[in-house]
């Protein structure tokens, strides 16, 4: 079975912020005050990024005539899935990297989905394995479609 792990909500939130950051490229140098402008409001549009001296600000934060350089840590933004914080790397005013520092991790949020090829349990395999199946869930069948269905067989097998 082929398995690949996909990150979902964290990635989605990250992408959302990435998209929200893009229009800020040119104006990034202006957002220079420490944690300046952090409205903290919900919504993707409020992800302001400011140069930050504390944790994560590994690179130098220089602003030259050709644009911002360095690593910037964004404010924590409250999304509908929970708080998200990203760190972006800029080179000459261009976004070269994004790192998600904080992503929702409460119960049931930020869950990784497993991807695989479609598994198949044939009736023969189920019978050979003596696998008890109580009922079947699937796309709604018609009254006619029920006849001859696995569910119909299970209903007849009672007693």
């Amino acid at each position, binding site marked *: 079975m082929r398995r690949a792990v996909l990150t979902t909500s964290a990635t989605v939130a990250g992408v959302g912020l990435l998209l929200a950051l893009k229009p800020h490229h040119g104006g990034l140098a202006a957002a220079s005050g420490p944690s300046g402008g952090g409205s903290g409001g919900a919504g993707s549009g409020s992800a302001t990024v400011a140069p930050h001296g504390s944790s994560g600000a590994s690179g130098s934060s220089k602003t030259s005539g050709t644009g911002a350089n360095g690593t910037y840590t964004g404010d924590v933004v409250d999304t509908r899935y929970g708080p998200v914080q990203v760190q972006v790397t800029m080179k000459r005013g261009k976004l070269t990297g994004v790192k998600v520092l904080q992503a*929702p991790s409460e119960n049931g949020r*930020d869950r990784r989905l497993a991807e695989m090829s479609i598994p198949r349990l044939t009736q023969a395999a189920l019978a050979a*394995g003596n696998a008890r199946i109580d*009922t079947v*869930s699937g796309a709604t069948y018609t009254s006619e479609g029920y006849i001859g269905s696995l569910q119909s067989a299970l209903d007849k097998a009672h007693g």
Partner: protein
Amino acid sequence: MAESGGGREVRVVHVMGTVVSFDVRTPMTPGISRALDAAEERLRHVDAVFSTYRPDSEISRLADGTLTLDACRPEVGEVLGLCARIAEESDGRFTWTPGGRLDPSGMVKGWAAEDASDLLFEAGATDHCVNAGGDVQARGSAGPGLPWRIGLAHPHHRGDLMTVVTGTDIAVATSGTSERGGHIVDPRSGHPATGLVSLTLVGRHLTHVDALATAGFAMGDAARAWVSAMPGIEAFGVTTDGHAWQTPGLPLWTGGGTAGLG
């Protein structure tokens, strides 16, 4: 027919354009037997009130404007209220006005099946399963110490399964390209939903799970992020490009070493 320990009482009802199967594992009593009759009667009543195929149903007359909501039975308002709630929860992906006409069919079946399940439970049938055309509400267990095992139908191979979900007090709803021929339309785009062949959601209450499955299926690929962020809901999806995905908390029965599973 239903002896204690492994006995089953099964009743199959053709209603609402599909088939509803009741499978009671609690030893039968006269009270449970009456509740089965009441549950069957209840489904026929719901069909009469909510059927969009019957011009004289309250829903049809409400849609035609020949009946006001005040004049309808209280359950009509209850179902429309549930529709509004799910529509909000799904950012408009669930609709009870497809094509501009009142049609809460996406809510009615799961709601009616859970309602029927409640009737059985209240009559003492603590262990039972209701399968409404492929949407399942199970209560209690399938036998002493045996959680229910619910197979997920393979969308491409009739009679085969993909995997088996297990649990007590569990609701499982699958939305897909229906045998009834109707394709689910994404109400936001107005186009048939693409990206998914089937979407199964697992939770506690079928009313909720069934409506969410309809909404999620209409989302196509976007359903992944949506369901993964939903507390208390697990999911199994099959994509149009031949892949499957699942949330990590999906309660799967792994076969306990028996052959043919994997």
